């Protein structure tokens, strides 16, 4: 049975077209839902949860209609909203236990599940402290815990890495990956950062302005060549020319040079070229895959775009 299905799904907020004739059929797994801010990701999640009624078209979760069978869907879905959703003056244990009971778990089961889930997301001694004193990373863990506590079959995560530092982001992504693989729970992760999502997902949905851009297994996308961005204070044009002369696929982009990393030897080529030209180097970093790449057919191939 398809995890999520939509046909002709349309949602208009007055003149704003949040979703426009969306057709989907997604199998269980870790599904990345990518799109720029305002692309319609949150609207899609809210329709699946029955929080928002579609203007036209239908959506279903595990074969249950999002409008007619909302309550049945909510029993088996865990939702982690994008924004803060935690009261500051209670402890994580108390809050998650309460949410478990609202989900229908009897008192003792709610306590047990809370302890288990908080351990899974990595909250230990601090779980009795008031949430108001938590770091953003800890709050995100509590948000994930409350979505997991009633053992859903599907997790809907809206921007789960929002506001996290790089270390926290990687931990959160690892948690999501473990949830999807070890726990056997289907996950939909909405994010505007393709680079993050592709680390954990098995399937990718890209939407833009409410329309479906791409829907394919992640393997379809990973053939992309990673890109190194070399930022220099001056002489980007000379560096680009030198790299092209050495056979690399490189392209000047303002004060940066984008180089396709086709082999490990390329790092040395870049280093030597920078040293030879003595260009003032600011930084070298791996480009996170950017959403725009999806919009072009020659995704992330800067050399060919020259």
């Amino acid at each position: 049975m398809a995890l999520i299905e939509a046909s002709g799904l349309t949602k208009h907020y007055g003149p704003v077209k949040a979703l426009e004739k969306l057709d989907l059929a997604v199998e269980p797994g870790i599904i990345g839902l990518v799109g720029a801010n305002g692309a319609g990701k949150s609207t899609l999640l809210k329709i699946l949860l029955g929080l928002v009624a579609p203007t036209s078209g239908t959506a279903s979760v595990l074969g249950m209609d999002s409008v007619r069978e909302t309550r049945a869907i909510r029993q088996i879905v865990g939702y982690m909203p994008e924004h803060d959703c935690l009261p500051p003056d209670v402890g994580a244990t108390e809050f998650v236990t309460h949410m478990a009971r609202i989900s229908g778990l009897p008192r003792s089961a709610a306590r047990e599940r809370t302890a288990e889930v908080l351990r899974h997301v990595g909250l230990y001694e601090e779980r009795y402290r008031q949430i108001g004193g938590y770091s953003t990373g800890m709050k995100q863990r509590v948000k994930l815990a409350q979505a997991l506590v009633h053992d859903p079959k599907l997790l809907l995560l809206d921007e789960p890495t929002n506001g996290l530092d790089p270390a926290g982001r990687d931990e959160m992504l690892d948690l999501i990956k473990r949830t999807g693989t070890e726990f056997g729970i289907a996950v939909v992760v909405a994010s505007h950062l393709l680079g993050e999502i592709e680390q954990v997902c098995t399937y990718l949905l890209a939407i833009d302005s409410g329309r479906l851009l791409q829907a394919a297994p992640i393997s379809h996308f990973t053939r992309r060549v990673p890109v190194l961005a070399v930022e220099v204070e001056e002489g980007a044009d000379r560096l680009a020319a030198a790299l092209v002369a050495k056979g690399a696929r490189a392209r000047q982009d303002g004060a940066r040079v984008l180089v396709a990393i086709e082999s490990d030897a390329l790092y040395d080529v870049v280093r030597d070229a920078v040293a030879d030209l003595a260009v003032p180097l600011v930084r070298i970093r791996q480009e996170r895959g950017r959403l725009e790449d999806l919009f072009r057919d020659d995704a992330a191939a800067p050399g060919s775009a020259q």
Partner: protein
Amino acid sequence: MTDPKRAAGVPATAPATAIAAATAPAGSIYDLGYRHYNGKRNGRGYAMWSLFVESFRGVWGLGRPMTAKAAPFILAGLYALPAVVQLAFSSVFAQRIAAGDQLQLLNYHNYFADFYFLAFLFCVAQAPELVCRDQRYHVLPLYFTRAMGRMTYAVARLGSLALSLFILLAAPALALFVGDVLMQSDAFKAVGDELPKALPSIPATALVAAGLASLSLAISSFSPRRAYSAIGIVAYILLMEAIPAALYSIGQTGGGSWTDKLFVFTPVTSLIGATYWFFGQPLDPQDFAGSLTSGTYLVASIGSIVVATAVLVYRYRRVPA
């Protein structure tokens, strides 16, 4: 393939070690792996009951820091204080009654009329606590994406505040009852004498609790900020008490007589007037201007409860989640 981060010159961040550290304490001994839950799942009624219990604890600050308990318990204590004092001195009063003194003691029927402002302050302090937090901290989506309906949510919150108010309002009546019984020499006979006088307290208290709870919660639900909600409750009650009174006095001097009908819109005066109906007591003309009867005030109070509850439910149908 090499680690792209290291190759790209990004300092190796701590994720790998941090994850290891995060999972290590669970270790091989405690970590049983993720277990699915196959136990019982209760339905909507249970969710409502859970929210009701949590709300009730929230109103009284139970399970919260002492600062959260201060306001409700102090106000409830102050409201019951006069009755408790009478209870404490009942033996002294009993001697004076036996000696033939006529004592003007506290009565069931006008206790609320004398001390209503403490119950009113309780609402101002605790009603915003119940509904503003969830809006301010965006907790509502978590409720509404569970098997909890919007109406269920509103009713559970309202019920808990009404029950809290009932307890606050009923405590002094109970103290009065015990005190009055102790003042009599024959306790069994005293119970029989006092009970008919005390019993109307129960429906009267229930009405007042429902009236204050629905009104203050309906107003609170429109703002995520406690302060604004509190001001809103105070402003509404003061204005709706003052405007009919002002129009009534204008009407008196102008010779109009219908203006006393406006008193049905007063929130607190109506509730006080309605309590007299249950006790079968005449309205004190010092407190109640105009010619409205306690029965009219009772109808006005019930109308106010219905309207306020409808507004509350309507608000939770519309509130964005």
